[in-house]
C-alpha cells in the first residue's frame, strides 16, 4: 500500500500557496464570529441534570441524621481513596451500624460520582454547588457535620422537590432493575434508566447545546 502524505498540487497552487491562503481565510472568518468565552463570575454556567459538584450527606428527615448505613461500598469504590468512614455497631437494639464520622478529602476527590452510584440508600450525593474554594484546607476536608451542613445549605436554595435530587438516576451501570438495591429503583425518566442511559458521547445527540454556545460554532 502506498500512503500519500501530501496531496498533489498543481504548479499554480504551489505558487500561490493555496493551503496557507485557505488557512488565513478560515482565521479571518473566525475573527468575525461570536466568541464562545463565558465571562465567568458575571455569567454563570447553566447547570445540567447530573452535575457533580460539592459533596453532601443527605440528612434523613425522620431522624435528622445521615442515611448512611456504613456498608463501606463508597470507600471501596472510590478511585482516589478519599472517603474515610468510622462506625460502630449498636449492640442493644437493632444491631445496626452507627456512623461516628464520615470524611471526604475534597481536594483528592476526582468527582467521578462512583460513590453516589454505588450507595444503596442514596446517602451521599454530589450537589450542584461548585463554588466552594477556601483559603484553608481544613474547610475543604469535609467531616460528617460539614457534609450534612452542605446538604442543608443546598436543599434550602433548591427550587425543585428535595426527594427528586436524591439521585435515583445515578446507579451502577449495566445492571438489571431488579438486581439494584431498593433505594436505586426509584422511578426516573427513561433516558436515565438502564440501557437508554445517556452517558459519554451519546450525550451530544440527545441534548441541544447551551444557548450561549449555539450560534456560529458549526464545527
Amino acid at each position, binding site marked *: 500500500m502506498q500512503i500519500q502524505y501530501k496531496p498533489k498540487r498543481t504548479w499554480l497552487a504551489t505558487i500561490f500557496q493555496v493551503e496557507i491562503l485557505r*488557512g488565513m481565510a478560515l*482565521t479571518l472568518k473566525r475573527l468575525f464570529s461570536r466568541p464562545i468565552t463565558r465571562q465567568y463570575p458575571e455569567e454563570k454556567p447553566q447547570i445540567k441534570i447530573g452535575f457533580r459538584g460539592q459533596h453532601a450527606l443527605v440528612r434523613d428527615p425522620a431522624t435528622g441524621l445521615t442515611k448512611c448505613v456504613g456498608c463501606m461500598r463508597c470507600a471501596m469504590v472510590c478511585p482516589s481513596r478519599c472517603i474515610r468512614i468510622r462506625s460502630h455497631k449498636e449492640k442493644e437494639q437493632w444491631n445496626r451500624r452507627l456512623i461516628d464520622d464520615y470524611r471526604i478529602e475534597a481536594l483528592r476527590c476526582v468527582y467521578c460520582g462512583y460513590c453516589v452510584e454505588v450507595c444503596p440508600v442514596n446517602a451521599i450525593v454530589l450537589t450542584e454547588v461548585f463554588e466552594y474554594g477556601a483559603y484553608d484546607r481544613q474547610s475543604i476536608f469535609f467531616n460528617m457535620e460539614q457534609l450534612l451542613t452542605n446538604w442543608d445549605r443546598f436543599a434550602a436554595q433548591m427550587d425543585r422537590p428535595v426527594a427528586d435530587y436524591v439521585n435515583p438516576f445515578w446507579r451502577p451501570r449495566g445492571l438489571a432493575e431488579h438486581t439494584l438495591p431498593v433505594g436505586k429503583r426509584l422511578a426516573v425518566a427513561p433516558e436515565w434508566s438502564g440501557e437508554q442511559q445517556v452517558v459519554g458521547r451519546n450525550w451530544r445527540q440527545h441534548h441541544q447545546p447551551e444557548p450561549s454556545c449555539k450560534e456560529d460554532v458549526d464545527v
Partner: protein
Amino acid sequence: MHIIIILIEILALFALVMLHVAYATYFERKIIGHMQVRLGPMRVGWHGLLQPIADGIKSFFKEDIIPAGADRPTFVAAPIICLVAMLTSLAVLPFAKGWVLADIDIGLLFIFAMSSLASYGVVLAGWASNSKFSFLGGLRSMAQVISYEIAMGLSLVGVMLLSGSLNLSRIVEAQGDSILGMYLLPQCLGFFVFFISMLAETNRVPFDLPEAETELVSGYCTEYSGMRYAIFFMAEYIGMMVMASIGTICFLGGWNGPFAVPFFPPLWFVLKVYLFLFLFIWIRATLPRYRYDQLMDLGWKLLIPLALVNLVLTACLKAMIG
C-alpha cells in the same frame, strides 16, 4: 534652539512609538483571541483597554533577576543594544512629506545596518545568559538573520534601481501619488521576497525559531525577567513597526493616498503600517512554525534566487525603458 526642537520631536516620536508598542500588544491579543473564538483581555478597563498599561507597570516593578553564571555586563547590555538599534532606525523613516527626523541619503542602508545590529543584541543575550536554551536561540537568530538579510537586501535593490535613490523620502516621491505608481505592481516579486524576509527578520511566526517556546522555552530571552524582558519585547514590536514602515515606504507608496488629508498628513502612512501589523498578527494566528532546515531551504534556495531574478529583470526593464 534648533537642537531643542529636534529633542522635542524625538521625545514626541519616542512617546508615540511606545504607546503604539503597548497597544500593539493589546491589538495582537485581541485579534488572536477573536480568531480563536475567544475574547482576549476583558478585565482591566473597558474590554481590557488598560491591559497594556497594567502589564507595563507590572513588568516595571518586577524583580530583576540576573543568573549567577551569566556574563553580567553583556547580559545587561544585550536588551539595550536591541532597543537602541530599533529606536535609531525610527529616525530615518519619513512619516509624511517633511515629517522625518533625519532625512539622510542612505536611509535604506541605515535601516539595514540597524536591523543587523539589533540581532547582535539577540546573539549576545543568548551567549551571556549561560543557558542552553538561550544559546540555541541566539545561534538560530544569527543564522536566520544572516540568511534573510541577504534576500531582503536584494529584494529592495529593485526598488533602489527604480527610484534611483536610497533616501526614503525620495523613494516615496518617485512612486507618485497614484495607485499605479506604487512599486507593489512592478516589484511584485520583490515584494513577495521582502514580505517573507520581513517576517523572518522580526522573528515572527512562522519564523520565530529564536524564541520557539515549544522547544527552547523562550529562546534567547529565557533568562530575562521583568523590565529587561519587556525591553526585548519592545524591541521586537518596534522592529515590526520599522519593517512595516519600510514595506509601506518602498512598496505601498508611503504617505500618498487616494486623497490628501488636511490636518494629519501621515494618515495614509499610519493606516498602511496598521495593515502590515494586522497581517503580522493574522499570520501569527494562522501558521505553525517552520522547521529549521525548511527555514534555511526557503531562505537560500528560494528567496535569494528569486530576489536575484527580480533584480536582473528590473535592471533589464530599466535599461530598456529609461
